[in-house]
């Protein structure tokens, strides 16, 4: 089942998607919010989102800087698909695919009339090219509608440029606006399949309710003409000589007029927009020869909309292709990096197994022990790799509880002592005195520190007087806890400093997964903090993890510290 979601389109966590559920969700800077927004302009508890029947409602919770939906400050607002929510400097896109779920497929709502179909008696009454040279204003209606057309084009331009989770949603919003703007009864967008070239209904819109199950007739002859000539046309199904003949069957059913315009992209024709209007027979009798229908200026407007929509479709397809290529590249890199690292671990296991086998054959217990030590080390590597992958994925949620930071760091030091001894590295631990208990995710912080201490030991291995120092503290001014890991290794090249937190970016060659620092950063950011690095080439490095002391008095009053 497809769910509603919020996608961060601007902000620190750009690209992160939060799925919305039936229970109310809190949005804010505080770590205890279900949707954590890492933005200093966002209040600790800024807003809530909750489902009310079939809708999601966002409500501001007396935030300092307000909650905006589509640029307007709100107190409470029912969200619709495509709405943009701004909290501080963070922009979230609301998507709710399920809102369209009840709608039947566009193809089921459109009847593409075959060529020479007896029902297709449309004929072209006007055709216009895409070069929209300024036309002479022919009527008062046209003159009065000029500002309206500009306004429509502006709104369409806004609409097609608006972030959207799918092309269909974007086209639907554009078509709804178009049908309303040209006062059509119905409309549909037909797109050419990029592979087959086959024209297929994509979305439909209906301004005037029709008979249930009625399909919108679309003349294949007209569509083909538009695709071939690349001209916009206005058509009618009334023949010139029989238009007002009351005995004509068309007259009995009402006269249907349609406009069909090409969607001309930069390089190719993307499809057509087709709208129609039906004038009922009784109206025809009263109106005599003043039959309301589409005007030429409306055709011009539709041609302009067709062009804009085509460019939007083209951009969407480019972006889709680009994202697909990026995703494939990222997947390839992930597989390559992880395979490489796992291969190295297996190589180590193979070495340990070899020694065990040799020791068993020679009844040499010492060899068996050495072999087992190698196997055990690589077993830990696999464990850490899996934990890093889980932490980096969305599987792991921080488990906040009251704990003593010094104890967590002490556990890391104890765990890393054997590795430090093996690499002849002196591990110095300087815990701050009287550090108070605080609320944090001990397992997460443990992993964040472990990764950085591991890196530090690897960095100093082989150096003279190799030393790694770990300190803790609480800054009374900023009220932030900190853990610093310093080493006297070779330091980090300046241009690498910018990249070291990128996933799969490793300075350790075959020995690094490129996950460690990215994972540490993710965990510290989950706590509302940051990792800073101070390093100069040849002069060691100092990584400082700092995060704010969490408020132990839950803002909502409904959540308690575990």
């Amino acid at each position, binding site marked *: 089942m497809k769910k509603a979601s919020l996608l961060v389109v601007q902000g620190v966590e750009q690209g992160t998607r939060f799925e919305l559920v039936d229970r109310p969700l809190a949005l804010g800077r505080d770590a205890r919010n279900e949707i954590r927004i890492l933005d200093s302009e966002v209040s600790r508890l800024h807003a809530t989102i909750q489902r009310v029947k079939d809708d999601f409602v966002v409500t501001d919770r007396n935030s300092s800087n307000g909650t905006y939906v589509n640029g307007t400050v709100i107190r409470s607002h029912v969200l619709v698909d495509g709405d943009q929510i701004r909290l501080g400097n963070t922009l979230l896109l609301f998507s709710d695919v399920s809102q369209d779920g009840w709608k039947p497929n566009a193809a089921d709502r459109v009847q593409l009339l075959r060529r020479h179909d007896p029902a297709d008696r449309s004929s072209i009454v006007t055709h216009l090219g895409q070069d929209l040279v300024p036309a002479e204003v022919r009527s008062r209606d046209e003159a009065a509608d000029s500002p309206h057309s500009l306004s429509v084009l502006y709104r369409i331009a806004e609409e097609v440029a608006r972030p959207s989770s799918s092309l269909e949603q974007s086209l639907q919003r554009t078509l709804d606006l178009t049908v309303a703007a040209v006062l059509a009864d119905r409309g549909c967008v037909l797109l050419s399949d990029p592979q087959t070239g086959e024209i297929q209904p994509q979305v439909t819109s209906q301004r005037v309710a029709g008979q249930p199950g009625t399909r919108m007739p679309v003349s294949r002859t007209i569509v083909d003409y538009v695709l071939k000539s690349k001209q916009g046309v206005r058509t009618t199904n009334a023949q010139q000589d029989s238009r007002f003949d009351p005995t004509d069957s068309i007259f009995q059913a009402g006269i249907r007029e349609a406009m069909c315009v090409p969607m001309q992209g930069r390089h190719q024709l993307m499809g057509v927009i087709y709208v129609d209007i039906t004038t009922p027979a009784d109206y025809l009798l009263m109106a005599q020869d003043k039959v309301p229908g589409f005007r030429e200026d409306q055709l011009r407007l539709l041609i302009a909309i067709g062009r804009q929509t085509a460019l939007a479709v083209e951009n969407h397809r480019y972006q889709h292709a680009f994202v697909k290529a990026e995703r494939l590249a990222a997947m390839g890199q992930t597989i390559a990096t992880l395979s*490489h690292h796992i291969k190295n671990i297996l190589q180590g296991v193979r*070495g*340990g197994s070899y020694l065990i086998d040799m020791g068993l054959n020679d009844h040499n217990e010492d060899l068996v022990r050495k*072999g087992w030590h190698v196997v055990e080390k690589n077993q830990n590597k696999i464990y850490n790799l899996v934990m890093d992958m889980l932490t980096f994925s969305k599987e792991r949620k921080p488990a906040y509880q009251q704990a003593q930071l010094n104890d967590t760091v002490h556990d890391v030091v104890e765990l890393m002592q054997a590795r430090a001894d093996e690499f002849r590295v002196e591990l110095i631990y300087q815990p701050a005195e009287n550090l108070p208990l605080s609320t944090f995710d001990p397992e997460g912080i443990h992993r964040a520190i472990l990764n950085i201490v591991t890196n530090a030991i690897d960095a100093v291995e082989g150096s003279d007087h190799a030393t790694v120092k770990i300190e803790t503290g609480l800054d009374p001014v900023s009220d932030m806890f900190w853990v610093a890991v310093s080493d006297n290794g*070779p330091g980090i090249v300046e241009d690498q400093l910018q990249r070291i937190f990128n996933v799969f970016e490793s300075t350790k060659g*075959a020995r690094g997964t490129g996950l460690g620092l990215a994972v540490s950063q993710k965990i510290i950011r989950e706590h509302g903090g940051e990792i800073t690095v101070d390093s100069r080439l040849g002069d060691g490095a100092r990584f400082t993890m700092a995060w704010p002391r969490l408020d132990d008095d839950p803002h909502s009053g409904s959540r308690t510290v575990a």
Partner: protein
Amino acid sequence: MDGLVSDFEAMETCQPRKDGGVNSAPHVLVIDGTSDTEAVLKAVLEPRGTQVERTRGTNIPRRVQEKTSPHVVVIDLDDASADATTTRYGDSHRILIGSVKTPVDERDRFLAKPFQYPELLQTIEDLLALPPAG
């Protein structure tokens, strides 16, 4: 003083020297890669009288050439720096280990990852039995 000089100084008494000093104890140097390779080679070769050392970091060629002249150098191509992989270490034979097949001189050997340790040990023993590569 560079990081590993003290390690190599400790080995001075038993290693062939640039100045012509001779010690027949075979010496295998592992450059970069994981410490597992060193651990396995040490466990197997040291009881047989072959000294195994591992080094990593910067300026490896200069540091190695200043102080020691190993008989066999095992280099992890996936991890080592370009200068460490292209340098010849005196008269030593080189065993290059990598994920991508790399052409090597007649006096050197290549092992593709993942390799079997008996294969690596056999290659080292074969090379130790050969005269110096120079």
